[in-house]
């Protein structure tokens, strides 16, 4: 295949993946709306209201089966979309001359980051019973893919010299993996806060699918506990080593570095808060969300506030501007 063909394949795969993610979202929405019906039939069957025929057990079971089926369908479609998403990344890397890792600019970072979010979700949904997070993950991935295609798209090109290093593989992979995991952790923490606001009432409908507060808190902690060392590795070990090689100083207080440090400090505070009286639970979850906010602000936002960053891949026309200071 020619480079151009790979490039076309990549673009089409992004579109196809987005369509399948959307189908997965539809399946999840159907699952959710059916969940409400199951509840209603359960309630009616219990009270035996005079106006409406009480639903028979068989009907309730049928409903339940349908809910489960749509849940599985959603997960299956997400899995298919993740595979297509991977093809998009592969095509992106193969279409460059010389072939390279597919994370050299904002478009590619976003493509890779959303892939990690979706893939981590698939891996963890089984082990940690995260299925209920499916609709949130799919919506998030879909939205970011649209942003990537509409605003961040860049035609494939070779890497600028400053990025042409094996540290691009080590540093950026770890940063993207940590970003994906922190994002998932942010989702579980947000769910925790929402569920907490609802109080202790008996949950019905889709909220019944969401685990208990303790479970949610534990799940968030585990995801963050995985992501934090990875982030430490990316930001405080490989980042400085590469910075030393490329820019002559291992810590430059460059805006991206500063915000990566801020993110690190906030998540360190989260981990401490979980073991501190008066901070665990709600405050810790809020800190986790602050962490997610700083993370994504660093990923996209800071590019619009600071023009002096040496992480200048953000602009399409500044691949060597750091060389021209």
């Amino acid at each position, binding site marked *: 295949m020619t480079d151009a063909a790979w490039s076309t394949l990549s673009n089409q795969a992004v579109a196809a993946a987005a369509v399948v993610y959307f189908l997965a979202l539809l399946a999840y929405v159907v699952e959710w709306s059916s969940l409400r019906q199951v509840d209603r039939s359960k309630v009616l069957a219990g009270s035996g209201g005079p106006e409406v025929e009480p639903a028979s057990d068989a009907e309730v079971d049928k409903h339940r089966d349908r809910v489960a089926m749509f849940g599985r369908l959603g997960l299956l479609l997400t899995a298919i979309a993740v595979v297509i998403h991977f093809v998009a990344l592969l095509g992106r890397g193969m279409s460059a001359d010389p072939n390279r890792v597919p994370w050299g600019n904002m478009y590619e970072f976003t493509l890779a980051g959303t892939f990690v979010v979706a893939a981590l979700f698939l891996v963890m949904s089984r082990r940690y019973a995260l299925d209920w997070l499916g609709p949130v993950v799919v919506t998030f991935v879909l939205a970011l893919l649209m942003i990537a295609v509409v605003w961040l798209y860049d*035609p494939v090109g070779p890497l*600028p*010299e400053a990025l042409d290093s094996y540290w691009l593989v080590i540093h950026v992979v770890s940063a993207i993996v940590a970003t994906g995991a922190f994002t998932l952790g942010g989702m579980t923490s947000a769910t925790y806060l929402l569920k907490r606001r609802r109080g202790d009432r008996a949950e019905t409908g889709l909220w019944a699918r969401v685990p208990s507060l303790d479970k949610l808190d534990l799940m968030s902690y585990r995801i963050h506990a995985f992501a934090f060392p990875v982030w430490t590795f990316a930001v405080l*070990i490989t980042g400085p080593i590469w910075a030393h090689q490329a820019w002559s*100083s291992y810590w430059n207080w460059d805006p991206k570095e500063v915000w990566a440090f801020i993110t690190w400090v*906030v998540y360190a*505070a989260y981990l*401490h808060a*979980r073991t501190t009286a008066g901070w665990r639970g709600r405050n810790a979850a809020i800190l986790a969300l602050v962490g997610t906010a700083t993370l994504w602000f660093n990923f996209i936002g800071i590019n619009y506030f600071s023009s002096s960053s040496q992480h200048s891949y953000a602009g399409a026309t500044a691949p060597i501007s750091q*060389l021209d200071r």
Partner: protein
Amino acid sequence: MGDAMTTTASRPTAPAPERRSGELTMRELLRWCWRQLTSMRIALILLLLLALAAVPGSLVPQERVDSLKAGQWKDQHETLTPIYEKLGIFNVYGSPWFAAIYILLMISLVGCIIPRTFVYWRGLRAQPPAAPRNLTRMPSHATYGTTESADVVLERARTMLRRKRYRLRADAADGTVSAERGYLRELGNLIFHLAVLVVLVGFATGSLFGYKGGVILVTGTPFSNTPTQYDDFVPGSLFRAGQLDPFSFTVDDFDIDWLTSGPRAGMARGFQAHMQYQTSPDGEEQDYNLRVNHPLTIGDTDLFLIGHGYAPVVTVRDGEGNVVWGPAPQIFLPQGPDLFSFGVIKVPDAKPSQLGFEGFFYPTFANVDGDPVNLNGDDLNPALSLNVWTGDLGLDDGTPQSVYVLDKSKATALPAKKGMETLRVDLAPGDTAVLPNGLGSITFDRVESWQRIQISQTPGKGVALLGVVLALLGLMGSLFIRSRRVWLRVTDGPNGTLVEIAALDRSGGADTDAVLSDLVAELQEEPRS
């Protein structure tokens, strides 16, 4: 404060000094401050303050990071600049308030870690605690009955827990087992926090004893490593000139690999500065290809290629026909990735009047509909386009001036030819322009390239690296090693043996119920014989 009040109350008959309720002696006050400072709550607040304090430095250009950008910002914001300067916003990471936060944080860390180290040391040698009286009151507990005898169950439990690397209490009461594991978790935690201090020491060593300098060299210009040869030289406060390694080098060739096709045509892909260097004046001459991401290390010093550009070689003759400038290269500063560059040539010795030139260099000049345009960063069709100034260039009174800025306060632009506001001379290599009014002439001879070489010593970088690696290892230990206690009690009942088992997770991140059910399942398995 509660302590202080009880003390006062318990000694009502004490003579002077009289104390009001809530009043603290100096010692008590200090102890109270220390307790507050080393509490986790304050540490958390300090952490968040540190994060918050780092923000302005990412939004406002920093003098130590990019002095050029910081200067431009100051020019654009006249009202804010004096306020920001007072607050140290242009040097956030070196400002006293930023330092105050991280020093307080470090004190808090030390105050927290030292007592914990002693506790850990004692805990290491201590036995796992005895089984609580009522195991069913523990948050995670299980009970089951069995026909096996108590001793068999106890023995199996001991073997199983030992295999799972639990430490067992030697003098456990009859019919109980006390077990604990995960001692390394707290060790990891301690190592992580101590390693943060190691990183700080490494970082401080670098900024105190190291230096960072830069020099712009036209290809072929030799450089020997003495402070006077640097364009900018920023030593740490404890740096000594004797630390400079006595090397010298010359970049004799500079190559750029330009992309000529594809969507990124015009982008530069590879830069190579071929250099010859000697590690000492009588050392052997060695070759190196200095590239981005591939620094050269000589002794303790690292050399980096961090910039490049063009230096047009120009000859200026004055009104009397004497060569008053050159032929010499003048460094022009790139304005963007296409190396469209801006520069200044000052000729104070020209007669009858000083001459100043200011303008642009086009690596690949093109005339598009009458407008001068630069098409490419490669020097395919170089052109110089300069305005000419005469009069006093402000060089005579000894005030230091940037070589990249023309002082026009006392100079006048040469009058325009028709169609132009000020006189502009456009030159291709080899061209000579005769200046009006008998002021002389300027010749554009050829183009050279220049490289910006960053030279730095960063002592302590190994310490800092060791620190972060230790921190990561400690962190992983403190996050992934599970610290838990397990107790088991067997009692003989009428229907066989009753087994109670409870587990307590001390790390706050584990599903103890799952751990417990695994243990119970394993205990209930028929022993394989």
